[in-house]
């Protein structure tokens, strides 16, 4: 079939089908190339734009790579002490119940120093969304072993691999909170492939809609990569994640509301 349309004819404003959302700022993210943080930020921003809740959303970013989130998302963001994001989000949501409140935490934050805050916020059924980025490592501080590090996985503080006899077992936070009566919707997703990004986006949107209906805590784990911490190329780290992280942290819903 003859096809003589030039690229210039396609690249016109009226043909635009996808561009970065205006809820993301123009700042270049501080994340390493290929890091799932950037993708997750973007899909949260896209949902905020689609739902038209830019001025009604408050994010809480604690300590970790996500600490600079306020530079990249054009919404209200409150900083929290290490691990304390669910406690801060509890206060914000109780004082401003009409706002959409979410926390954005890594595994070194949520599953280590913030374990107590996370479990109690979920157990109280605080009406917030917790987004949990799990890459099995302390990314920001140099790739140290985290509670979520897999058995045998190498990190800068477990150079011969995590020895379970000495260092304990990896912690499945999402499975734990799914057993608590306060949680309403608990799911585990990823953002390494287009299909997974779309599924994660749907899950986050659902969670924010549940929040509007005052249903309780929604908890979304995003199994992600850490190319720098894992010492891998970005694409290689995604393949490694599929092969090693997903068998231990299987993707899918852990708790869905009864319709």
């Amino acid at each position, binding site marked *: *079939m003859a*096809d003589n*349309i030039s*690229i210039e*004819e*396609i*690249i*016109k404003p009226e*043909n*635009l*089908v*996808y*561009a*970065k*959302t205006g809820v*993301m700022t123009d700042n*270049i*993210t501080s*994340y*390493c*190339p*290929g*890091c*799932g*943080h*950037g*993708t997750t930020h*973007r899909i949260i921003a896209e949902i905020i734009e689609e739902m038209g809740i830019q001025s009604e959303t408050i994010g809480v970013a604690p300590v970790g790579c996500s600490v600079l989130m306020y530079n990249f998302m054009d919404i209200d963001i409150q900083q929290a002490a290490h691990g304390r994001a669910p406690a801060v989000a509890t206060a914000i949501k109780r004082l401003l119940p009409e706002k959409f409140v979410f926390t954005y935490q890594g595994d070194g934050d949520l599953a280590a120093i913030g374990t107590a805050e996370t479990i109690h916020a979920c157990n109280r059924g605080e009406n917030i969304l917790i987004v949990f980025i799990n890459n099995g490592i302390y990314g920001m501080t140099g790739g140290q072993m985290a509670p979520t590090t897999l058995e045998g996985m190498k990190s800068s503080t477990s150079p011969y691999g995590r020895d379970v006899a000495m260092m304990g077992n990896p912690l499945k936070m999402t499975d734990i909170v799914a057993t608590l009566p306060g949680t309403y919707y608990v799911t585990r997703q990823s*953002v*390494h*492939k*287009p299909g997974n*990004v*779309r599924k994660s986006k749907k899950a986050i949107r659902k969670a924010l809609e549940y929040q509007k209906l005052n249903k309780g805590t929604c908890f979304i784990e995003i199994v992600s990569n850490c*190319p720098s911490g894992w010492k891998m*190329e*970005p*694409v290689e780290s*995604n393949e490694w994640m599929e092969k090693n992280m997903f068998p231990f942290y299987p993707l899918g819903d852990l708790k869905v509301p009864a319709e």
Partner: protein
Amino acid sequence: MAKVRGAIVVDIEKCKGCGVCVVACPASVIELSPNVNSKGYHYAEPVNHDACTGCTNCAVVCPDGVISVYRIKN
């Protein structure tokens, strides 16, 4: 028969050359450039223009949101 044609525009200066879009593209449109941007990253660029269907997979998976996608029905 209508044929869908697409095109992408990469914000070269913001691209970090991670290559996630290269493997996400079902039509093998994108490659990492032999040239670098001012930060030294081999940025992504469309090389196989005619194969692009504007499916948005590359843009959806881009951690830095540097890809814009255009699509027309021919």
